[in-house]
């Protein structure tokens, strides 16, 4: 692209632009079915719902940039939510620490992932699968034995459903903050550079004197924490925590990140793309759901749309 263009325009790669174009196209198609798809309430509602996926996908993106993947999202989400609600059972002190405690539990899952992937060199796909199973087991034990408290605290409710700035739901603000933080980290900090570097070639990064294992560990911990935060917000939204609440977020999170132009093999991608991907997936799911399409048709269209969009812009370059 032209060098004289402002740098933020230059950075917009084709994938991001097309992803946003697809969002507009989806909305137009939706509005053919019902004009309420263009109503501000509906759009705001979608943005709000997208925020949960957005927060979770942020962590997923960080891990994918490293060339890894985090399959422990489902139970990291649930663990975060359930533990936060559990803490709330311990009086006011518990309620005050509910959110940090929930996040901490997610971080703990992430740390285990990170230790396995970075220090034991276990492929992330299987390591995170195993921690997911362990987290699930732990939650089953917990639910079965400790008279679980699973109502969200007022603070969680407020974060998920309130709006400090009139008209803008708090979750959207939280997502914006998380996103802004991630953009800053990825573009301005040495940690961010290292993430891209490791995603491209960990060996070279290591020989450059980077403590690559620590970076990978931190990235997984952050991803676990963000999954848990997503779970906490979801619990606030639903006003309670449930075991299965994370199931619906794993594949959409991966799909959103990739639809946003991030390379699944790591080292390439921008957060703007992830935003687009998250909104795309959320809208697509919502429109298909409201259109009264039977489940089968919905699955088929969902899959086809993802493939078609990726064929539009997500193809790797031909070598010749």
């Amino acid at each position, binding site marked *: 692209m032209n060098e004289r263009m402002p740098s933020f325009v230059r950075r917009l790669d084709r994938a991001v632009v097309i992803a946003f174009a697809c969002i507009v196209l989806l909305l137009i198609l939706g509005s053919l079915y019902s004009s309420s798809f263009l109503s501000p309430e509906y759009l705001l509602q979608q943005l709000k*719902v997208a925020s949960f996926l957005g927060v979770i996908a942020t962590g997923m993106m960080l891990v994918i940039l490293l060339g890894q993947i985090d399959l422990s999202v489902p139970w990291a989400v649930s663990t975060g939510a359930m533990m936060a609600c559990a803490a709330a059972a311990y009086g006011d002190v518990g309620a005050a620490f509910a959110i940090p405690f929930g996040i901490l539990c997610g971080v703990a899952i992430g740390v285990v992932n990170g230790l396995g992937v970075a220090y034991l060199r276990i492929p992330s796909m299987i390591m995170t699968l195993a921690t997911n199973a362990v987290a699930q087991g732990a939650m*089953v034990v917990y639910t079965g034995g400790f008279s679980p408290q699973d109502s969200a605290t007022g603070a969680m409710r407020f974060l998920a459903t309130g709006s400090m700035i009139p008209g803008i739901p708090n979750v959207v603000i939280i997502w914006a903050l998380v996103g802004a933080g991630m953009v800053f980290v990825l573009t301005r900090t040495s940690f961010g550079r290292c993430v891209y570097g490791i995603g491209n070639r960990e060996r070279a990064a290591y020989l450059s004197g980077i403590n690559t294992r620590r970076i990978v560990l931190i990235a997984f911990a952050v991803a676990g924490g963000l999954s848990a935060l997503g779970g906490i917000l979801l619990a606030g939204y639903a006003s*309670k925590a*449930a075991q299965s609440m994370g199931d619906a977020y794993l594949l959409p999170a991966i799909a959103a990140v990739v639809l946003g132009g991030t390379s699944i093999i790591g080292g390439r991608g921008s957060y703007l793309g992830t935003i687009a991907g998250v909104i795309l997936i959320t809208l697509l799911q919502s429109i298909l759901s409201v259109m009264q399409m039977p489940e*089968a048709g919905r699955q088929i269209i969902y899959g086809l749309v993802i493939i078609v969009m990726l064929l539009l812009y997500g193809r790797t370059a031909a070598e010749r």
Partner: protein
Amino acid sequence: EPEVVSGPSADPECFAPWSAETKFYKFPKKDGPFRIALANGYIANTWRIQMVQTAKAYAAQPDVAAKLKEFKVVSTGEDVPAQISAINNFIDSGYDAIIVNAQNPTAFAPVIKRAKQAGVVLVAFDNILDTEDAINVNVDQKGLGELWGDWLVKYLPNGGKVLEVRGVAGTSVDTDRHTGLHEKLQASGKEFKVTEVMGKWDDGVAQKVAADAIATNGPFDGITAQGGDTGVVQAMIDAKHPFVPFGGETENGFRKLCAKHSADGLKCTSAGSGPAQVAVAIKTAIAALEGQVIPQEVKLPLAITSDGEFKEGQDFFPTESDNFFVGNSFPTCGINFTAQEIMGQTKENQ
């Protein structure tokens, strides 16, 4: 090989036959104490955990424990073949009766054959088996749908727009409830415009799809949800949707909201399938082993609580979790657990 006899069954209050056509079985009497196994599938949700804990608590009751030599529980997850194998293993290990919450109603034909040959009593509950060779203990899923249909018809005598939040596509529970509902709406002869969304029996999902439906197709005159009802009400509140009549399940959270907003128009009927049915299944299995007459299909009473009847501390528990299923007792069978008693059990024992 049970003998087909004529009713009534041994404990007619508890072992109520499904219908007039239901057969009655009398298994050859065996000497106790018995070895009974529970082959559970999925475990990672509150309903299942509550169910497993109830089973353990029931088996530990002195009068029941006296009849049992061993009570073993195995959860195999969502995978049907794993559950089939577990049952096979129980058969090979010589258990007298096997209780199963089947992941799939039709998949167990081969293993049912084997159980029959081996003289093992097979009792299915909740997700029952499509066969006459096992005893089925269940609530009337279609009846639940009918209950909700009737409820909506009652409050919307002129028809109207209804939001139906369904469960997991392709499961028989979802289909039965859906069919029951629509039959009743149809039978009313009024015009009901139903918007269906899939809530997956999950609060988060149900809330999301309900919110979407309200934003695009709302407002609705009546709502029914198969599960995740707390989320659906939450979505109404968030969207400032007026409270309307609601037919739903038995989650504590849902009932809390029903009690609270009844005056504002949230007229609820709440009924469902409590996890304590596992205890009825165990009781049935023991009765069968003892050679008592039992129906092939046991119909559990629907514990219905409707608007105006919600009693604190009995039908809902304001200080407790939203998440568990109230109605954990079947008084006709002498099974009276409260949910907190079950879910807190280990803690108290410690």
